[in-house]
């Protein structure tokens, strides 16, 4: 994939719940190996916007382009088919199932006789989750009994295992301790090197400022602007979140790679 074609582009997205415009004509894009932070107050529309991309929510207007081509995303299955994976804030785990069952939920490995290949799934799950969290041992208990960090490891493992090209992380570190947060940060760096594009959603600027290459700020369902983290200070971004105004002297859009041909 060429660097100047966005991995994904959401153009002029509209979502309304009843009379409330949750997302009102927002356009964002994401390039390979890039982390875009999506910031805004609770209720700014960032989660709704991203649900459109992950198939959990239908847009009323606008279009989605993956790798430059227009796609229809009607449900989570469609999103997965386009290698769009999501780590939800709620983690979306089935609490009564164990780690392997959750990791492979919807994509189980099947034996030739049509039955679940549980041993293989467990082996794979052990391999993947251990890489994220070496202390993870409880593979035979419902995930309800795991700690917040361990549950997060299961949710992350599920998203990255299946050749994700576009990864959506909704408040990925909100429930984590210091060490676990660092683990997630390391993982994000690693995924970037593999050319995966990541949307990082947060209402807290500190969570994303150091990790993101660009930041898009939303307020009241509209996009305030998109800036390169290198060009702005945290205070500038706070101003965008609170006042809904671009900082002075900073251009909107901020492409990841400086390329004079494209605007």
């Amino acid at each position, binding site marked *: 994939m060429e660097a100047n074609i966005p991995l994904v582009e959401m153009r002029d997205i509209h979502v309304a719940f009843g009379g409330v415009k949750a997302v009102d004509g927002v356009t964002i894009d994401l390039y390979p190996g890039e982390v875009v932070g999506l910031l805004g107050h609770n209720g700014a529309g960032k989660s709704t916007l991203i649900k459109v991309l992950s198939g959990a929510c239908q847009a009323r207007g606008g279009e989605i382009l993956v790798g430059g081509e227009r796609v229809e995303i009607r449900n989570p299955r469609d999103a997965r088919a386009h290698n769009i994976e999501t780590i939800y804030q709620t983690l979306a785990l089935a609490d009564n199932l164990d780690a392997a069952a959750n990791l492979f939920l919807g*994509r189980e490995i099947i034996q030739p006789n049509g039955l679940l290949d549980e041993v293989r799934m467990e082996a794979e799950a052990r391999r993947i989750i251990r890489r994220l969290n070496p202390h993870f041992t409880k593979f035979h208990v419902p995930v309800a009994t795991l700690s917040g960090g361990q549950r997060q490891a299961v949710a992350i493992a599920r998203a990255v295992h299946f050749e994700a090209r576009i990864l959506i992380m909704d408040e990925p570190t909100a429930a984590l301790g210091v060490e676990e947060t660092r683990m997630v940060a390391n993982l994000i760096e690693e995924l970037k090197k593999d050319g995966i594009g990541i949307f990082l959603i947060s209402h807290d600027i500190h969570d994303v400022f150091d990790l993101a290459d660009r930041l898009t700020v939303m307020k009241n369902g509209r996009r305030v602007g998109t800036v390169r983290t290198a060009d702005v200070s945290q205070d500038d971004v706070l101003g965008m979140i609170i006042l809904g105004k671009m900082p002075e002297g900073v251009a909107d859009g901020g492409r990841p790679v400086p390329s004079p041909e494209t605007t």
Partner: protein
Amino acid sequence: MIKKLLDDLEVDTRLLGMVGALAVIWIAFHIWTDGLFITPRNLFNLSVQTASVAVMACGMVLVIVARHIDLSVGSLLGFLAMFMGVVQSDVLPQLIGGGDTPAFNHPAIWFLTLANGSAAGMAIGAFQGFVVGYLAVPAFIVTLGGLLVWRGCAWWITTGQTVAPLDSYFNWLGGGAEGSIYFWPSWIVAIIACLLVWYTVWRARQQRHRFDFPLKPRWAEFVTGGGLSALIVVFVLVMTAYEVPERAAARVYEARGWTIPEEGASLVFGIAIPVVILGIVALVMTIVARRTRFGRYVFAMGGNPDAAELAGINTRRMTVWIFAIMGLLCAISAAIASARLNSADNAVGTLDELRVIAAAVIGGSSLSGGRGTIYGAILGALVMQSLQSGMAMVGVDAPLQNIVIGVVLVIAVFVDQWYRRRTER
């Protein structure tokens, strides 16, 4: 120490509790009835009486695990029994033999009847599932409606007349002297069951070996496998110890065209056909629930419906299938229940929905979804039936029987939740 032992064995301690409760009930009634309860005759009858509710309970587990409920199963059973009654008595004999010479008791009738009933049961179940899944009406309401509708339809088919007698082969499905598999077939079933047990043990071990997972200690495998095999053998020993009364045996000999030996016809019951059916249903449903994608999705839906949806599971279509399976099992139960009575009447299956739900719940299914086992539901049905038959044998008044069963249901769920709270902390 004991905990370590149980961990090694990987047995469900809850299951042990239920088996213990069952043992207490049986022994208490055995003493109370002066030694009539734990006898081949009574246990045979108990197994037949349990079969119909237990078959439906297997399906109810899936329904409850998926956070739904089905209140219509008793009425649906009644409707399907009437439907199959008319099909085998009025429709098929005429179709096969022609209008003037109806072919009563034609050997194909029982099967065609069951096939028709199963198709009707699945269709009705699927329809209810459609209303629940796609039209988003709560299952409680849809099946409460179904409870009234199907009972009404059962009456409508014959305007309330009882259909009797039923097809003579169809009646085999209900157990009794005709509907058992006698000595040798019972032992063949026992051998197959034991082979299945050991194959499962061996296969699980081999699978774990493939990925170098820690294996269960060898002795633990032998204890679980051996315990299950012993249970099967004891069961068949008991069933084959119950002799068919001589006159009934002679009738069976005659009906089957066997020559009666000089010393007279002698026959043991062996496993009842409805119990064989229950065994097959239980095996298939256990595999479906535990080893297939479908079963995995049912549990995921129960654990977290949103997560299931986000994982790309089509929960609406799943709901249709879950209720369709429930409908199919209702048809099988309807065949067992009506064949046992040798008639289909308007009241068959009345209040069965409550027995079935109670069996599933006593067996550990959680009404908040995501949890339940097939074997637990069958044990639950057996516990309920043991209480009911035992009290009937002792001569407890019917109202008091209901009181006892109601109280036991609540206590069972209370103990279960208390136990879980203690072990899950």
